[in-house]
């Protein structure tokens, strides 16, 4: 640090840059809020009851609703988490509790971080090659698998980090009482970190619920409300994309309504997650 005397010019420059920093922060928030406000406002004009109660009709000038797409997303996320959550948690448990075996934990940790940054369209292509082609058709299973691929590294890393936050005294006390390693992990450590682990899982769910690209080549899309994952499967994001890039005014209105619903759900999810996380972190610290 040069300890020169700073003249008036330097002081004015500092004040200007101060203003710039404040301005930039305000600008970012204003810009992002503008985008969201616009989406919500247009969406609010377009959403109605039919949106939630009707499926896609065949007619693009009166397209019906997006009930099938909302249910589709819920089912896909549910199926993805049926595989993604246990696998991710198990991997996180391994990396946190068994990390004596560094030949597995270290590369797994590294790769999990790196996988989280892979473009989701590449994951979709993987899902196509691994599941759609051998299975013979586009399906909900392939879509759920692609989403699970995305979920597992995220859940693994957040589980690991939350487990590491649990003080060792918990583990020592549990062993002192005669518990096995499995019992310690499942009945002592995990419950202690459960708030934050659930937070991490729900963050992964929120991320995956908003994904479009991985579903384009795996679940394809459908206009029917269906619970059968063996067939092409609808989803809110793909349906919005299809309508948004088309020429039909009525379909585009539905796309805006869909965005409103999607953003509202994701916002509500994230809000609850962070409130719960803050509360459970305080709880952990106070112990």
């Amino acid at each position, binding site marked *: *640090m040069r300890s020169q005397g700073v003249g008036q010019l330097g002081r004015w420059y500092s004040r200007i*840059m101060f203003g710039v920093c404040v301005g930039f922060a305000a600008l970012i928030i204003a810009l992002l809020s503008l985008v969201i406000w616009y989406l919500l406002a247009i969406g609010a004009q377009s959403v109605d009851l039919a949106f939630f109660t009707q499926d896609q009709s065949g007619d693009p000038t009166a397209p019906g609703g997006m009930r099938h797409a909302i249910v589709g997303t819920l089912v896909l996320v549910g199926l993805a988490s049926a595989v993604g959550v246990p696998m991710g948690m198990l991997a996180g448990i391994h990396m946190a509790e068994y990390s004596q075996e560094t030949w597995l934990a270290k590369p797994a940790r590294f790769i999990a971080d790196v996988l989280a940054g892979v473009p989701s369209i590449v994951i979709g292509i993987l899902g196509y*090659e691994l599941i759609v082609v051998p299975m013979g058709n586009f399906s909900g299973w392939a879509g759920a698998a692609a989403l699970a691929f995305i979920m597992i590294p995220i859940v693994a890393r957040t589980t690991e980090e939350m487990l590491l936050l649990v003080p060792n005294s918990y583990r020592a006390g549990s062993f002192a009482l005669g518990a096995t390693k499995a019992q310690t992990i499942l009945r002592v450590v995990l419950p202690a970190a459960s708030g934050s682990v659930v937070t991490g899982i729900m963050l992964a769910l929120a991320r995956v619920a908003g994904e479009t690209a991985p579903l384009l080549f795996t679940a394809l899309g459908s206009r029917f409300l269906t619970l059968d994952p063996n067939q092409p499967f609808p989803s809110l994001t793909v349906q919005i994309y299809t309508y948004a890039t088309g020429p039909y005014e009525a379909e585009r209105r539905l796309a805006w309504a869909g965005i409103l619903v999607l953003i509202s759900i994701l916002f509500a999810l994230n809000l609850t997650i962070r409130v719960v996380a803050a509360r459970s972190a305080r709880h952990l610290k106070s112990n």
Partner: protein
Amino acid sequence: MSQAASHPDRGPAIPPGSPTAARRAKTGLGDLALGIMARFGAASIIFMLTALLFVLFTAALPSVRQFGANFFISTQWRVNTLEKPAIGPDGRVLKEDGETVMTTIPPAFGALPTIYGTAVTSFIALVVAVPLSFGAAIFIVRVAPRWKIAGPISFLIELLAAIPSIAYGLWGLYVLAPFLRDWVAPTLQKVLGDIPAFRWMFFETITIAGRLQERPIAFTGRDMLCGGLILAIMILPIITAVARDVLRAVPRAQIEGSLALGATWWQSCWGMLRYARAGLFGAVVLGLARAAGETMAITMVIGNNNQIAASPFAPAQTMASLLASEFREAAGLHRAALLEVALVLLIMSLIFNVVARWLFVGGQSRSAAAH
């Protein structure tokens, strides 16, 4: 009861025949099961990466073998075969039995236009987003605590990071693109259009009727500029959040020391930025990785024309948008070429993420050593 802590990895501190030993013998199976399942979970992550690389590589092999290194410098992306009149040795069109002889030019694929599109849009995104993000991060770390709004602002920015990319795509297509087309581009053209140094922005050179011709660019709003700006908006939250974390880790001694030596507020900030430059660079790389891998928003606003053009007002195609546009119906060599592009995209994002991690770890150990 003299029970030693019965850590399973230490020697038998449990008297054999005691109730504890009996209990452990029964639950040993649970131990084994969890250990195996946990190992399986961790292995699955490693398997996922190997599967990705293996599947993409084997499927891209036909294209790799056919085009080799030329794939990365070729500007051709032609899916259909071309029939051109054959030119004889005398330079004139060959005729046989009064009919023109046609040579068939097979499909040719080259990744350069998409690499160019990805590079330009990412560059525009970083140029716009990095100053904004760094400024906001400095604000959050240095100014906001005094005003007691550091928490809410960070919270807000992280919340905004949860917006799905398709929302940005919709906004970009129906709000930003028309705005750029009707206001920004014409204004820029009025101001800069006559200056020869800026001619490349408003004119493009295309091969028409076999000759290179210069044409004024028609503004459509769906171009590299719109793509870059949308990407900038999308990566603002992530760069801001990471930069904020990195700057927060700068030891207070550093800041207070510089202030004590008579530095102005900005000079101490600059000192912070320099101190944390490894981590900040990592934040930029993370933003770059996100921008380069973004698909949905950019497919909707980039114009989907797989070409190389100098002007930001020209349409283009990025690697991700090319895959979104063409993969579903590609077959044969076309599909192999697309998979090679996907492989390039994957390896690029892996490299970015590895570099970012390395920068963070390096930065952390540096600040740890400073104590």
